[in-house]
């Protein structure tokens, strides 16, 4: 699920007003039915869909016991299904069309949570998909914006004070979420994405903090989604959980929130047991209770601790952010942070780590957010 509306909101809310699909203009491909996903093909970009993302989050430990979290996400947005003919180039004989012409935009978000130093820092990088400035390809996987990249076996990005450089190795094959990879977000056809995850990716490498390299290793989570729709009109945002438990099992669950504050019936998730077997989850399979809140400097109030209960699996855990402030003050604002998990499964203690994403709290929705 992840930041689909981020997609819509960050750039496209502005880029796609209500009249976005013009008469006669070919419209974007729609995620309507489950289709077999193929790898490595589907690792790569799906340019006919309006938006897509490669989302890597992970928890890291340094050799001397320091704790970090990181997020590196690259979004792709298509501005049009196809490019119109370049404006009357014809009369200037010999003039070629410019290589800067592009219909794809790539947006990178990079954040580091430095638990020991109580620091959370993020950066943004934006470019058009042209001239190799930014782009994506399937085999070998490489998605990049400038010098930030998510590759088949590496993750690299830098911001003020932090350089992240990790070698990555998936510990399991891709897990298809929803209905064989088709994840519906509302009752309207097309408000859906193709969605797969690799919940366990072993990562190992360095974080250069303030010029000093630290050896780190840990576990990351890759989320992949593409589609052309948006949220339903009554939906305002979601709370997404990606938890990796100590016993080898993983939980992905997104709770969609409606305008009236109720949990939307299209909330869903996937349970992956330690053997890699998956079980789709619906709204009624997971009960979430907010235990605490955190308010940012601008007065935006986010939930900040949860009790998550899954009666069918005997799971009862508390999810705690490693730092309260892991808010990305971008447009739109959202909270995406490393969390600790502790509790019991079938009566036995269980612990774990993960990432939580909270969107739609800043009071903007896909429809109203504009470019700042």
């Amino acid at each position: 699920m992840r930041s689909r509306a981020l997609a819509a909101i960050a750039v496209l809310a502005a880029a796609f007003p209500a009249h976005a699909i013009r008469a006669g203009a070919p419209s974007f491909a729609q995620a309507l039915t489950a289709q077999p996903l193929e790898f490595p093909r589907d690792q790569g970009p799906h340019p006919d869909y309006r938006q897509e993302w490669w989302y890597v989050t992970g928890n890291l430990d340094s050799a001397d016991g320091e704790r970090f979290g990181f997020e590196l996400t690259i979004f792709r947005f298509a501005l049009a299904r196809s490019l119109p003919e370049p404006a009357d180039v014809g009369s200037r004989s010999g003039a070629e069309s410019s290589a800067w012409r592009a219909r794809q935009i790539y947006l990178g978000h990079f954040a580091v949570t430095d638990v020991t130093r109580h620091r959370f820092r993020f950066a943004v990088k934006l470019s058009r998909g042209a001239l190799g400035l930014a782009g994506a390809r399937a085999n070998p996987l490489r998605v990049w914006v400038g010098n930030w990249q998510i590759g088949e076996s590496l993750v690299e990005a830098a911001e003020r004070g932090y350089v992240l450089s990790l070698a990555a190795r998936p510990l399991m094959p891709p897990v298809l979420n929803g209905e064989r990879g088709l994840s519906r977000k509302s009752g309207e056809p097309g408000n859906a994405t193709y969605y797969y995850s690799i919940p366990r990716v072993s990562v190992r490498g360095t974080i250069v903090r303030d010029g000093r390299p630290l050896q780190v290793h840990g576990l990351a989570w890759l989320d992949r989604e593409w589609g052309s729709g948006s949220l339903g009109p009554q939906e305002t945002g979601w709370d997404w959980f990606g938890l990796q438990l100590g016993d080898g099992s993983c939980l992905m669950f997104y709770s969609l929130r409606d305008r009236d504050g109720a949990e939307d019936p299209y909330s869903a998730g996937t349970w992956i047991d330690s053997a890699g077997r998956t079980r789709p989850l619906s709204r009624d399979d997971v009960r979430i209770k907010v235990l605490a809140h955190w308010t940012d400097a601008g007065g935006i109030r986010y939930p900040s601790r949860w009790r998550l209960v899954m009666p069918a699996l005997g799971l009862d855990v508390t999810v705690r952010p490693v730092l309260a402030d892991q808010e990305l003050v971008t447009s739109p604002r959202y909270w995406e942070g490393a969390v600790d998990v502790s509790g019991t499964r079938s009566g036995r203690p269980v612990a774990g780590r993960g990432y939580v994403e909270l969107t739609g709290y800043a009071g903007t929705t896909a429809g109203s957010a504009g470019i700042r």
Partner: protein
Amino acid sequence: MPGPAPTLWAASLRHLLRQPAQLALAVVALAAGVATIVAVNIATASSRRALELSLRAVNGPATQLITGGPSGLDQGLYVRLFTRAPLSGNPQPAYSPVVEGYVTVRSRVLQLVGVDPFASAALEGPQGALPASVSGRATLTTLRDWLVEPGAVVLAAPTARELGAQVGEPLAVDIGGVRRTATLVGLIHGRRPGDATLMLTDIAQAQEWLGMAGRLTRIDVRMPHGPAAASALAQLRRELPPGAQLEQAAGRMRETLDMTSAFAANLTAMSLLALLVSALLIYGAVSFTVVRRRRSIAILRALGATRREILTIVLTEASVLGAAGAGLGVLLGLAVGHGLVRLVSRTVNDLYYVVAVQQVALPAGAVIEALAAGLGTALLASLLPALEVAASAPQLGLRRSVIEGRAALAARRLSWLSLALALAAGALILGSGRSVLTGFAALFLLLVSVAAVTPSVLRATARLASRALSGISSVGRLALEDIAASLSRTGVAVAALGMAVAAMIGVSIMVASFRVSLRHWLTQTMRADIYIAAPGPGAGRPERRIEPAVLDALLATPGVADHSASRSVVVRSSRGDIALDALHLAPGSYAGMELTAGDPRAVWTDYARGALLLSDSLAWRLDLRPGERLSLLTASGPREFPIAGIYHEYGSGLGSAMMSLEVYRRLWHDDAITAVGLYLAHGVAAAAEIPRLEAAAGGRQALLIRSNSDIRAMSLEIFDRTFIITRVLYWLAAAIAAIGLVSALLAWELDRTRELSVLRSLGLTPRGAAALVAAQTVFMGGAALLAAIPTGLIIAVVLTKVIDRRAFGWHIEMHLHAAQFLDALALALAAALLAGLYPAWRAAAGPIAGEMREE
């Protein structure tokens, strides 16, 4: 210190109020001088400000710029900088690629700036999350339109309004003669004045329109502050390919602004001239008001008023006068300045850069400066008469003959001063080398020297003429003796007129000589029958080029026998930007090049091998001679070029260099052609060939296709436009002089009402009285002319041989024509006659009895 008693102030006020016409004229004269300063200041400051704003609007927050040669930079450099920057936790430089040119929209020139919104956003803010360059400057309805809509452009809201462009509607633009269709997709709101002359578009669109696919005009760089900057800078320098240059954004801007300052200095000198003329007039006016009051001042002195009190009163009067004149002048200057702005910016556009003045700027400093100059001038001008009257003993105050006696003595002394000033001017010119400023200083000394000698000339000629008339006309004799005897009244006004006339003669000889030289040069150089060029603003703009297919069609047109071709660009040299004309000369064209230095036998062989030829102006500006070398930045880095010769040219004042087109193409990888000169086959008439050439261009590109004679006429038209400002200014100076003369004559005439009454009572008819006064003023005009002619000639020499040479490096031959002197004659006589009209009318209408009653 106790001030003057209230009675003294009351007397002063009464006096001031009794002479409203006199005062008004003095104030007007001063106002005119101050107005000229303000107007020139406004005009130069506004064009400079416009240039600065457009540079700033375009450069934004860049700290450095990466620039290339005439065809720009390979865009691969930007791609490398963006994608291959080493990952670092230090603050990183931000880069923003820019593709830039000029477009014409409904006859208005705008700067087309193609940017990548994401990169320029990153340049503007450290977060760089969103395209701030678009959102910050414009309320874009959609980013999508910017990137996807064909021909998408954004304009400042006021500019769009002025052009009648609507968001969402197509807009026809002309780029180098090729018509394009733009679509206005957004407006820039907010009030950054520099935005008014911009047309923003996506970098892809700009590349396509300007024919610059694969190239960038430059890359804007924002270096981080702090310790990381030095290493980032060093790193960047290592990345730069040969042919690319990293320069400070501020330095670049300064350099561009400096180009226009020579021009501004010219105008400022002119405005100072106007003030100088008005200073003399103030002197005249104040000394008149003081002299009028000798009697009352003498009475006041006799009643116990101290010298200091008298001095205070007179100087206070002068400062009131000065403040009023200066204040009025500032207002007047504001009004005139608006008109002058247009003239100045057109000149700057013709000669230097494309500047669209949107806002009239008046630096606060300039107003204060002008007020101070006005006040200072009034005080200085009145100091002498004030001192004199304060120093005079009570009884002497009553006697005119003493004053005139002093004036005659002063005139003799002034003649010596005049000689000294002229000598000083000569010494200054000989001793100052290349300085334009000292050239102007010498010019002022010469003008003052005319002013100083004029009273003596007036006196001497009046005496001579009076002697010649002895026994022929007693009234005429009387009139002339009267002039010679009234130097204190007439001398200063005539001196001012002399100065204005001398300046006029000098300037008009210079302009005319220049024009003749230019015409001669055009005839000499323009050997081809028809010239074809891509239209558009900015001489060295890369987008000004003839489309290759169109060029082929033109050259294949029947009737074309041979051709010259040129590529005009601006290249970086070790000495700053220079205009470079890369030429392929037809055999017939060589004869047109007039060499002023260099070995004529070897020049063309060296030229073909890659040597440069420099124009007079450039050689003078850079102080280079044949045999020396100049380093130019080629596509593969800096390269030294020998200088084979210097050629004669009256292009821009900045000059240009010439190089073989073949050599240029090899070293700069630029195949474009800016202009061609066509030689027609024997018997083919240009007028008949032009329609055939237009047909060959076939509507693909609107080219300037002009016959040899049309080009000549056009060049002279531009020339004349350039000198409109000069003309405006010297007519202003002449107007000030005329006002001064009116004021002086009125004063004199008031002084003589009794005399005239006596003459009238002795039988002089009203018409005779009018004729007498008119004849006197015409005589004074003639005397002014007599003093002005030789000095005017000298001034012309100084202007052509010293000022123009020093400012622009031009070689101008002096050409004298009767017309220039006739102009001056007309001016002097017209000013004198006009000035005499009112006094003459008064003399004719003056009552006899009333004036005699006192007797």
